[in-house]
């Protein structure tokens, strides 16, 4: 125990070192942190009430009036405030959808991988089947049925995008379950549930974390798209997607109304994608079993 470093610190230090080398990932992490902060304190940062109408001040261009830094929309609402509150909505949906996706995917992946046999065959056939449907089709059909609330939108997105996660987790479990520490737990008489939750799940944390990060990106994208089509977040609640829908009507004259929410979506998706990519490199699976 001479060169002993406490475990989390030692491993985290190595992960951090790899991560730091990935410049895009650092940028992604920065963007994500910024977005989280602005969403968390949206009402503090927002200069105006995002729902406040003022028809005398329609289409104020950006950077012309300090009270409306990014201008106003067709109803005279402050664009910056709407962007901030829309971000709150988008990130909330993104995170809740991600949690749904990861929980469902991990649960199914672990069950299929650890139980094997018929359970594995049936679950993986189910995954194959779900993957035959284009996700946007599946998402829109379900979204059109259920009354759109933030929770239902998040759940629908989450429940139509867990399949890849379950495949990733299953592959990881198939590898892990052959390890002797699992055999040791079985020799002690541990139940299947205990083995799946206590022994296997924590060891699959790295790929799950990577998948989770990337899933926030795709969930934000999906939310904005279905909101744009009118099946997602409903006005007057602002979301980047429905801001785009409104902006489309005044596209030729006031393009900034469409550019701003689109840029916000792009920035968010990129932030999470780059972060996830960097995490994947940093959390190289081989690291975990290092002596």
């Amino acid at each position: 125990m001479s060169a002993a470093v406490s475990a989390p610190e030692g491993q985290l230090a190595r992960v951090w070192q790899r991560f730091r080398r990935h410049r895009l990932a650092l940028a992604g992490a920065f963007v994500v942190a910024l977005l989280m902060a602005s969403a968390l304190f949206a009402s503090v940062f927002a200069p105006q009430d995002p729902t406040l109408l003022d028809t005398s001040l329609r289409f104020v261009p950006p950077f012309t009036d300090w009270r409306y830094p990014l201008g106003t929309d067709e109803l005279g609402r402050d664009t910056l405030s709407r962007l901030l509150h829309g971000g709150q909505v988008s990130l909330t949906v993104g995170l809740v959808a991600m949690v749904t996706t990861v929980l469902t995917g991990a649960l199914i992946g672990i069950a299929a991988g650890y139980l094997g046999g018929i359970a594995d065959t049936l679950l993986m056939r189910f995954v194959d089947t779900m993957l035959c449907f284009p996700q946007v089709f599946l998402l829109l059909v379900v979204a059109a049925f259920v009354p759109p609330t933030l929770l239902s939108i998040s759940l629908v997105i989450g429940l139509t995008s867990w399949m890849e996660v379950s495949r990733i987790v299953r592959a990881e479990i198939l590898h892990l379950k052959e390890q002797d520490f699992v055999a040791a737990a079985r020799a002690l008489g541990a139940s299947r549930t205990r083995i799946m939750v206590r022994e296997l799940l924590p060891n699959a944390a790295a790929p799950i974390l990577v998948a989770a990060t990337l899933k926030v990106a795709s969930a934000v994208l999906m939310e904005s798209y279905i909101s744009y089509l009118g099946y997602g977040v409903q006005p007057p609640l602002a979301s980047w997607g429905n801001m785009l829908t409104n902006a489309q009507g005044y596209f030729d004259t006031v393009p900034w109304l469409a550019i701003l929410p689109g840029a916000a979506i792009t920035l968010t998706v990129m932030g999470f994608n780059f972060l996830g990519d960097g995490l994947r490199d940093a959390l190289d699976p081989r690291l975990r079993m290092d002596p």
Partner: protein
Amino acid sequence: MIGFVARRLLQAIPLLIGVSLIGFGLMHLAPGGPLAVYTLNPTIQAQDIERIRIIFGLDQPIHVQYVKWATGIVSGNWGYTFFGGRPVLDVILERLPATMLLMGSALSVAILLGLSIGILGAVRRYSVFDVLATTGALFALSFPTFWFGLMAIYVFAIQLRWLPSGGMWELGEEGNILSLLRHLVLPTMVLALVITATWSRYSRSAFLEVMHQDYMRTARAKGLPPRQRLLRHAFPNAAKPLIALLGVELPFLFSGALVTETIFGWPGMGRLFVDALNMKEYPVLMGMMMFTAIFVIIGNLLADIAIAAIDPRVRLQ
């Protein structure tokens, strides 16, 4: 080879059954069921709904309905639209050419571009070009297709007025190839962006892998020129994962086409899907879900067969 194809076909059957169960289940488990649109419409009387229910066979037990519906799918009777009573399959097939045209042109552009970028990146690994290309692909993959579409319309149609902003033909020019091509440019560009990024990433790693194999080293040792090595040895081997990618990416291609079609008002299946969604046309929606899923299954089947044709070892597994 025949045995291989037969086995692959057999394997597709449970997938088809699964797809039909999910499609059918989705429509029937939905709140209000397939008749929600009528029950919500105050001008339609309760007895009318009952009549429609019987006409569409919705009064029968669920498994009977499923079997009837599934045999219909197999025999080509995909049901009738709620509004207008047209055969669903006709409605879908009518839109197929437009979607195939868009998907085909986008895929061709994407494969050509993506493959070239990927191969060049693999050959000159870590060069400035490679770094730019890989970073660029990462950016492109994060670009929301529908916003990219809107921006493309703003720049090329509204500001520069180079290209039309949507649709397939100019009014009165139906059948004019030149007009069609002009309308095709923007949607193709938008749909191709993400696919190009995916293809450049995959082909780069496929070629990198192949180039480090023994037979490539042997080819170099034998003094074959680089171009020959690439064409004769690397290409056939790198083709396998790329053909598989073609199959796997089909659902994403459909998703992308749907998004692109809605932005550009392209009269294909994606547009039909959104219209059917807005009108709560359950038979059409169900039909389209089945159509795309079957399309995806067949696409993957063909990809597998193509791979087996290239590499005899695959057949024996």
